[in-house]
């Protein structure tokens, strides 16, 4: 049993598990932090960006005038942003049988895998994961395709040149494998391979393995997975939350009794309390608006934004923000808001009971109805005419490299009245802002990451007690910036098995048993005998049938009777059919009782001789020897087959057959 680790990003994992005869990919995360090395893609021509100086190495030997631009001391690639894909060389991805997706953030690399590796299997995901995942992919594709960039920079990737570049470009790994965004056609094709599953649904894979998604409490439809056979159990924990937000609570108890627990997707902000951050978000927002400034919230179009809107719903009236317009701009804004309302089954209890009334589970329906929240597919069209300031704008992409957010950065960046509030934890805000420097607008960093923190996870692990834990190496040491915080790492006994990109781990499994089904006819013919109190034995002779990894035992078919016309001359001439061995024997033959039995059968003249290991019985009349020992009986009997068989049966009376 092996685990191939294809991603080094702890919250955007991609691992492949070989379990029994199946090859299972666990998540398909796309590392988008690579886009921070690129210049932003403006929606309308940006004079500032186009006037950035080209970067030239100090000695002037490297001049990639067209590819590299410099802004505030940092170097950026002037090209369509590219993503860092899961490793594709570690194993042949066409052998992957199934892909299990745990949440919509962890499936963004799906089209690269399903469309370009010869993958022919099935992808399993819940309905919200599929629908919202589709929206996020669609958004990404739209962001990229509506501002096409003619040039594609590749020279900087040359190893010799990359070596000479300043950081962080110099240290970027595997830049040759970075890829541009996929197309909508590839998205549709990839998602057509998705098979929908519900929580606690048991899905059989080739009869060998059963997989089952469990609620993980992190986002709509987010799941952890159980991968098990009758005797082995692997739990895959990815992006889980114990906070009460909108999704159904996490199912913890089903993770119990795992042989191996693969732990990924812990919080990226272990020191930031989500509730505190939410408070800070609201107060900064109110402060800016009151001062007449605008608020920009770069965010994903699904997930935390639902909670932010719900929080604002309660907050705006108290804070006298009733007249402030809130805008949500994304190609999928409308869809995301609509979809959030139809997944009652996947929501927390409170929201479910609202649906029974029937009321929409999320209050953003009311914000839209009362015109407090407006959504637009982009800054073009209606928005440009309806837009009023000061206002609050929610828009993507949180990396600030593409999407409508780029426009607002150019528009509002120069005024210190405005504020940008970062809520998504995926990108360092300093890196995100780098190509916009110098910047006058205020920056507030309130990352909201509801995923498990180290305290919660150690409590969880104590509860569910897996035999072994596998996790990204990042979790086995404190973060670099807080090296003294030993509470920000996993401390377990036995210690967790760490992995990094390209690791191949041998999982510590000892498979000893397999499930087999005894057919009723055979089961009825078995004769159990009790050998110890509470323990019975039965010898089984059967024919094994194995089909689709399911094993059954049936009775041995009786040999067809010989045709009656052909009379056999003498029966003993026919050698016995090779029936396999007789059962093993166990126990001992007690001397006195055996002698008594012999006597009963008319064998009276017995001379008993004691030896080192037992006794020798000399049956004088029959000229036969029986050697009785603790762990063996030896019958020496010539020319008297009937006597031999009688003695055999008498001995067997004292022994157990296995």
């Amino acid at each position, binding site marked *: 049993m092996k685990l191939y680790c294809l991603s080094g990003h702890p919250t955007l994992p991609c691992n492949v598990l070989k379990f029994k005869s199946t090859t299972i990919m666990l998540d398909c995360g796309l590392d988008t932090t690579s886009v921070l090395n690129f210049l932003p893609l403006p929606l309308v021509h940006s004079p500032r960006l186009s006037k950035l100086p080209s970067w030239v190495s100090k000695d002037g030997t490297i001049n990639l005038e067209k590819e590299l631009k410099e802004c505030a001391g940092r170097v950026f690639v002037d090209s369509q942003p590219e993503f860092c894909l899961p490793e594709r060389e570690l194993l042949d991805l066409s052998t992957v049988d199934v892909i299990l997706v745990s949440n919509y953030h962890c499936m963004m690399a799906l089209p690269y895998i399903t469309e370009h590796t010869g993958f022919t299997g099935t992808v399993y995901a819940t309905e919200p994961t599929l629908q919202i995942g589709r929206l996020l992919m669609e958004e990404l594709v739209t962001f990229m395709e509506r501002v096409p960039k003619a040039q594609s920079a590749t020279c900087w990737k040359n190893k010799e040149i990359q070596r000479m570049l300043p950081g962080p470009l110099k240290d970027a790994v595997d830049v040759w494998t970075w890829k541009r965004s996929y197309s909508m056609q590839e998205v549709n094709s990839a998602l057509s391979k998705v098979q929908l599953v519900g929580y606690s649904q048991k899905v059989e894979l080739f009869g060998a393995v059963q997989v089952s998604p469990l609620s993980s409490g992190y986002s709509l439809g987010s799941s952890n997975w159980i991968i098990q056979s009758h005797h082995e159990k692997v739990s895959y924990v990815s992006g889980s939350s114990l906070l009460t937000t909108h999704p159904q609570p996490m199912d913890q108890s089903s993770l119990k009794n795992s042989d191996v627990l693969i732990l990924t997707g812990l919080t990226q902000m272990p020191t930031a309390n989500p509730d505190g951050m939410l408070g800070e978000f609201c107060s900064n927002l109110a402060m800016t608006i009151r001062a007449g400034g605008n608020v920009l919230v770069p965010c994903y179009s699904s997930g935390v934004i639902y909670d932010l809107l719900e929080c604002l719903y309660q907050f705006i009236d108290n804070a006298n923000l009733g007249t402030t317009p809130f805008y949500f701009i994304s190609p999928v804004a409308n869809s995301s808001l609509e979809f959030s309302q139809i997944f009652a089954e996947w929501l927390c209890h409170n929201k479910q009971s609202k649906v029974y009334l029937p009321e929409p589970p999320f209050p953003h329906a009311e914000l839209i109805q009362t015109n407090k929240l407006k959504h637009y597919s982009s800054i073009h069209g209606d928005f440009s005419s309806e837009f009023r300031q000061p206002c609050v704008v929610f828009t993507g992409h949180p990396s600030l490299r593409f999407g409508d957010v780029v426009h607002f950065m150019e528009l509002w960046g120069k005024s210190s009245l405005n504020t940008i509030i970062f809520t998504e934890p995926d990108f360092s805000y300093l890196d995100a802002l780098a190509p916009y420097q110098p910047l006058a607008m205020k920056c507030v960093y309130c990352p909201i990451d509801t995923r498990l923190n180290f305290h919660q996870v150690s409590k969880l692990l104590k509860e569910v007690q897996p035999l072994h834990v596998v996790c990204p190496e990042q979790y086995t040491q404190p973060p670099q910036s807080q090296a003294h915080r030993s509470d920000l790492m996993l401390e377990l006994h036995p210690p967790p098995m760490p992995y990094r990109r390209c690791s191949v781990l041998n999982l510590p499994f000892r498979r000893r048993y397999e499930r087999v089904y005894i057919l009723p006819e055979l089961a009825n013919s078995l004769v159990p005998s009790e050998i110890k109190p509470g323990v019975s034995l039965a010898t089984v002779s059967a024919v094994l049938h194995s089909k689709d990894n399911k094993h059954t035992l049936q009775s041995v078919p009786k040999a067809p009777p010989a045709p009656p016309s052909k009379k056999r001359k003498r029966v003993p001439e026919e050698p016995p059919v090779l029936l396999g061995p007789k059962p093993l024997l166990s126990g001992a033959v007690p001397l006195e009782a055996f002698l008594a039995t012999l006597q009963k059968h008319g064998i009276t003249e017995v001379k008993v001789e004691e030896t080192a290991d037992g006794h020798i019985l000399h049956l004088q009349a029959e000229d036969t020897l029986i050697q009785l020992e603790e762990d063996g009986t*030896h019958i020496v009997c010539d020319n008297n087959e009937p006597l031999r068989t009688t003695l055999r049966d008498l001995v067997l009376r004292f022994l157990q057959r296995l």
Partner: protein
Amino acid sequence: MPEIKVTPLGAGQDVGRSCILVSIGGKNIMLDCGMHMGYNDDRRFPDFSYITQNGRLTEFLDCVIISHFHLDHCGALPFMSEMVGYDGPIYMTHPTKAICPILLEDFRKITVDKKGETNFFTSQMIKDCMKKVVPLNLHQTVQVDDELEIKAYYAGHVLGAAMVHIKVGSESVVYTGDYNMTPDRHLGAAWIDKCRPDLLISESTYATTIRDSKRCRERDFLKKVHESIERGGKVLIPVFALGRAQELCILLETFWERMNLKAPIYFSTGLTEKANHYYKLFITWTNQKIRKTFVQRNMFEFKHIKAFDRSYADNPGPMVVFATPGMLHAGQSLQIFKKWAGNEKNMVIMPGYCVQGTIGHKILNGQRKLEMEGRSTLDVKLQVEYMSFSAHADAKGIMQLIRMAEPRNMLLVHGEAVKMEFLKGKIEQEFSIDCHMPANGETVAVTTNPSVPVDISLNLLKREMALGGPLPDPKKPRTMHGTLIMKENSLKLVSSEQALKELGLNEHQLRFTCRVQLQDPHSDSDTLHRIYTHLKSVLKGYTIQHLPDGTVMVESIVIKVSSCAEDANTKVLLLSWSYQDEDLGSFLSTLLKKGLPSGLC
């Protein structure tokens, strides 16, 4: 032999008060708990005293499962749980859980408030009953207890309708509830995987209908409405708030759009928004087309259908009005009916069943003069039409479901005996499986033949699979030997050697030695070789070795030769074998006693 027992308390050779008791693997399950529309007395509810005479049912039932929100499937639920007494879990899907209490409350109001019945369940009882409900998601495997698991499948029929797969150990039953196998205007088709249950309990409302005539009924309906509108008449459609009403609304909405009709369609107040809201929020339960387009256009946000105000009833010109309740026994639908009944241009379309005693029932039976309160009479001049819109599987659909699930036995409920009989014959003929159709109170037992799950040691299994080769040979089945250890609740199959080891037992060797005298005038080694050749020719398929140390081994039986001290031509063969080779050893000693055939080289 283990068996599954099924007793319908309702819906046995009948439609109405569905309630089926199933005993499987020591568990008792109640499937549906409905009321009968046709009765106003005790027969309205299933006879729960069949389960026990002494009141509460909690200890007799492991769970109750409700397939969908129609009253003939859930109408007796508060009576059963609150008045007879049941505190265990009640399973139903989310939409059923949402809509069921509304219909129950409607039912209660009609019975108690309008008809003045006492000794009926109260609003509070409905609430208390709903607190016992555990929501089910599609395809989720719910563990009712350690042994009993249930799983819901999509059934179409109405919003939230489900089929359930019930499993205990390796025995299983599927109950379909009501279902339809063809997608309709707002719902998808039922689907189940090849779960091969021991028993499939299916509804059989349309057991003899071969082609689904729903499209025709829809066309008929639209034609009648259209004709009436064309001649300037008003159309009244009495409905219940949920279910058929939405389907008819979609039907009219699309028709109005297509035909570009201008006549107004109204939906009586209070209901529209609320009822349609359920459909909007549970859109994942509707059909593919509606689900796909809901962001752009929610099918349950109607453009042409507006809220009704009572003053509109006197407006001149044609109109269509959906009004509650569905049986014309009270409320808005009755008021409008009174106003419009006198004009033969108008029409009333009854899209569902009407209980005896209601005006709906009377006019459907052709009564043209109605006695109203205050001794006034009402002349019914308007056209009266009945149109059934219930979505059920037809005979073809039922056969299709059997093909999908591959059950070992069939049981029909929720249909008329004569029609069932016909379908039963068809099923038995086509699938060669037993088909039952018990009447209410009659028990059917289906014997099951569960195989016994056992844990086999991987060593033994691998060894066996390696020896057996990649493909089984049907002519030469390999026999596998092992020991089954039964300890507490575990069953383990291991090799005999491992069994000895695991149980801490010593092995006892039983050996036999036998001397056989033989006349054979050759040297010892020649004799041995002659024995070897002889055995080789007799024992085909056995391993026979002539070892250099002067022995012949047949499998693990040792044969040695020595000359008799007195006579060099008399040879003494020494055979030695263990109990495990008893058959062969015994055979060899007998064979060799007969001497060696001449002509052996």
